[in-house]
């Protein structure tokens, strides 16, 4: 059983979440004496007159105290004899749904409050839906304020039925229902004397004993690479956290997306050299041979994780600006960040009722099932199969806001490979983006890119001069700025793959790494071009390059 349980509490504005957590801390005498003093003081200005208001323990921001509501997640810490706990107390109001989702993404278990006098409300349904979307698999429904319904068992049974219906609807696993009173302390930390016909344990006892790992089912080993550790030329280690499974020195692993295989030489768990490592541990792994692995790649063993070009996702929109289909966002998934386009909203989902709706756009706190097209293949899987590779955020490229978060429902495979160099001559390598296809996507009304050629070419090889959206001359030079490499093509064959230092202009047409014509007509021009190189400055492109000399935009559907 896990020594640390992270859980969230959610409920609507007056359900008494903060009071419940305040009471657990208070009852268990887990408060430091001076915090108690501060609390008694705070209560004088609090909402319950002179009586201690437990919720003041949690609402920490000045605006929250003034308005008497929770705006953002508050984290609290306590330990009992059995376990350590981190509680994320989350806001219940619909306006702050995204803050609730923050707490839910952090937690293993959700405690959802239901007011006994009101039963399951739209808020309850919203909270359960968000928790379930964020991957919580354990639920406690705390039927609160039992004191206000005279501790009526039949009322409790009624609500129990409502909750069971909701659980079925959302396919919630592991549901526990407990009647309690947070203000009076019934079934919070001790069994209530007012509800002796309820035979279950109090909330805290349940939290102390629940085993949240029992249905852990991810296949094999996988570790998204956070960084490459290179203290000197002799050591090249891949650092990351093991997301599932175990590895042993000598194991054969597969690096994705390249698909290259290698054996594990050494494993370090932090600064300790070990012979095996397991889920959750931060490791550094060295391999027995050189493979093409950098940040964003994933090391795997015994898994079938795909490399995908498109994803069907379920997402929560979190930005004040509404979702725009066809707009390019940064997609962060695992340790990889690449550009992607939200090509289509299949349907929105009413966060309260679950009803599907056809929409053109989505505003803040809206849920929807969407399609994302990625600029290049990404190692991803469904949230169900490999959780960490099925979670993502979208980042607005201009404001840098985290615009949405979501989970992968379905992956659409791409042929293996993407990062392999296309031009190789010993140590000198360059990317082959000149073979990218630019096409107009008829479903999203946007221009997208797609790369279908996965070959590696070296000196003497014939290259495909013509594609759907490009056509290069027989003789031309390619200056791949990102790799500092020049490739010269003569009669459709590769003549040279050399570093920039060795390159001289000979009068044939010149293109950049993406196949745009570079407007140079002398060695002097080439020099100036190199000197002014700034990949992020559109003015540099305008001054020196022309898109449509050898390229055009082709028509294509989104199945491309």
């Amino acid at each position, binding site marked *: 059983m896990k020594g640390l349980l992270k859980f969230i509490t959610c409920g609507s504005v007056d359900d008494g979440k903060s009071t419940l957590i305040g009471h657990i801390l208070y009852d268990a005498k887990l408060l430091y004496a001076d915090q108690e003093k501060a609390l008694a003081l705070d209560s004088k200005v609090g909402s319950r007159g002179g009586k201690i208001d437990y919720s003041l323990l949690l609402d920490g921001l000045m605006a929250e105290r003034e308005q008497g509501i929770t705006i953002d997640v508050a984290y609290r810490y306590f330990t009992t004899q059995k376990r350590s706990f981190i509680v994320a107390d989350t806001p219940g109001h619909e306006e702050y749904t995204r*803050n609730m989702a923050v707490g839910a993404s952090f937690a293993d278990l959700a405690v959802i409050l239901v007011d006994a006098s009101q039963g399951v409300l739209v808020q309850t349904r919203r909270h359960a839906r968000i928790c379930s979307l964020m991957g919580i698999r354990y639920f406690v429904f705390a039927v609160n304020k039992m004191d206000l319904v005279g501790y009526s068992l039949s009322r409790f049974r009624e609500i129990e039925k409502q909750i069971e219906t909701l659980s079925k609807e959302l396919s919630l696993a592991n549901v526990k229902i407990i009647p309690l009173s947070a203000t009076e302390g019934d079934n919070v930390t001790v069994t209530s004397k007012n509800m002796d016909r309820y035979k279950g344990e109090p909330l805290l006892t349940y939290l102390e004993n629940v085993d949240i790992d029992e249905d852990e089912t991810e296949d094999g080993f996988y570790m998204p690479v956070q960084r490459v550790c290179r203290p000197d030329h002799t050591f090249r280690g891949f650092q990351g956290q093991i997301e599932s499974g175990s590895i042993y020195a000598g194991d054969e692993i597969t690096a994705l997306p390249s698909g290259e295989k290698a054996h594990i030489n050494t494993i370090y768990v932090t600064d300790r050299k070990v012979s095996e490592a397991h889920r959750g541990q931060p490791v550094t792994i060295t391999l027995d041979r050189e493979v093409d692995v950098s940040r964003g790649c994933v090391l795997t063993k015994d898994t079938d994780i795909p490399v995908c070009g498109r994803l069907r996702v379920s997402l929560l929109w979190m930005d004040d600006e509404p979702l725009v289909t066809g707009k390019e966002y940064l997609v962060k998934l695992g340790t990889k960040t690449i550009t992607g386009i939200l090509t289509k909203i299949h349907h929105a989902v009413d966060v309260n009722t679950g009803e599907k709706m056809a929409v053109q756009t989505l505003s803040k706190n809206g849920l929807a099932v969407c399609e994302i097209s990625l600029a290049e293949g990404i190692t991803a899987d469904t949230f169900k199969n490999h959780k960490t590779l099925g979670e993502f955020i979208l980042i607005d490229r201009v404001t*840098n806001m985290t615009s949405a978060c979501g989970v992968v429902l379905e992956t659409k495979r791409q042929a293996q490979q993407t990062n392999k160099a296309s031009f190789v001559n010993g140590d000198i390598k360059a990317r082959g983006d000149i073979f990218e296809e630019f096409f107009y996507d008829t479903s999203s009304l946007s221009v997208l890119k797609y790369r279908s050629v996965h070959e590696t070419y070296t000196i003497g090889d014939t290259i495909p001069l013509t594609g759907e959206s490009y056509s290069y001359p027989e003789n031309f030079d390619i200056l791949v700025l990102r790799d500092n490499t020049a490739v010269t093509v003569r009669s459709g064959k590769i003549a040279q793959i050399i570093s920039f230092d060795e390159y001289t202009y000979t009068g044939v047409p010149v293109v950049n790494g993406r196949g745009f014509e570079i407007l140079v007509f002398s060695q002097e021009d080439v020099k100036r071009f190199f000197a002014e190189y700034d990949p992020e400055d559109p003015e540099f492109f305008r001054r020196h390059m022309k898109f449509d000399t050898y390229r055009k935009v082709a028509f294509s559907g989104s199945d491309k």
Partner: protein
Amino acid sequence: MSELSHLDELEAEAIYIIREVAAECERPVMLYSIGKDSSVMLHLAMKAFYPEKPPFPFLHIDTTWKFRDMIKFRDETAKKLGIEMLVYTNEEGVRRGINPFDHGAAYTDIMKTQALRQALTKYGFTAAFGGGRRDEEKSRAKERIFSFRNSAQAWDPKNQRPEMWKLYNTKINKGESIRVFPISNWTEKDIWQYIRRENIEIVPLYFAAVRPVVERDGTLIMVDDDRFPLKEGEKPEYKSVRFRTLGCYPLTGAMESTAATLDEIIEETLSAVSSERTSRVIDNEAAGSMERRKREGYF
């Protein structure tokens, strides 16, 4: 396979965060205050990148009023571990003679808050690790692990970026910077238990010893050097004391204790009757004072 312990899990979370920053942020720095939380942070950074050294410098904001033992410890630690330790002092404040005895809140603002802002600007750091923990104070309990500051280094608590799973968004606009709190989820108890488990060296002031102190407004202040202005008739008493937090010596309350080993400290901490920030004089002001300071750019 055995489950990770609760400390293992906290350690893994912190290391993940530290590595993410090193991989994604342009110019990170780790703030180093010489206290026990900083010692834990430094230890985590050493472990996160092993066998490489942390790929960023450490920064100490020296108010010139730190305990002498702290400065000695800082210099020895930096030398022993071979890390880059930057020390920054607000020289303008020194010239103006700003000190904790005469200038109260202005001292903290000028020698700490402003000094930090100046240092971050001077070196162009875009991300700064801090050792803040959410169990320390109410507004901190609400702060994200990646906390954004506008170009005036101020925090906007009502509009924090959502932070989902482990997918930290480290993108910033020009002029903005990030504070990163890898040990947000640790409690004081976790810190002490981790120090014991990992044998982390900490400043000797945390252990009880007989030291010269005077009592001011119910707080024991150590007379660490001859700049301490003794009032008429005031004489330092020798008492067995230790410190739960370390800062500027005139502003740091000592507690009477005989706990001279880690086990004794942990024992005393777990049965403590007051949480650690009571010994920091600056926190005992009006409710919400920390939040106000953070909005103004306090770390």
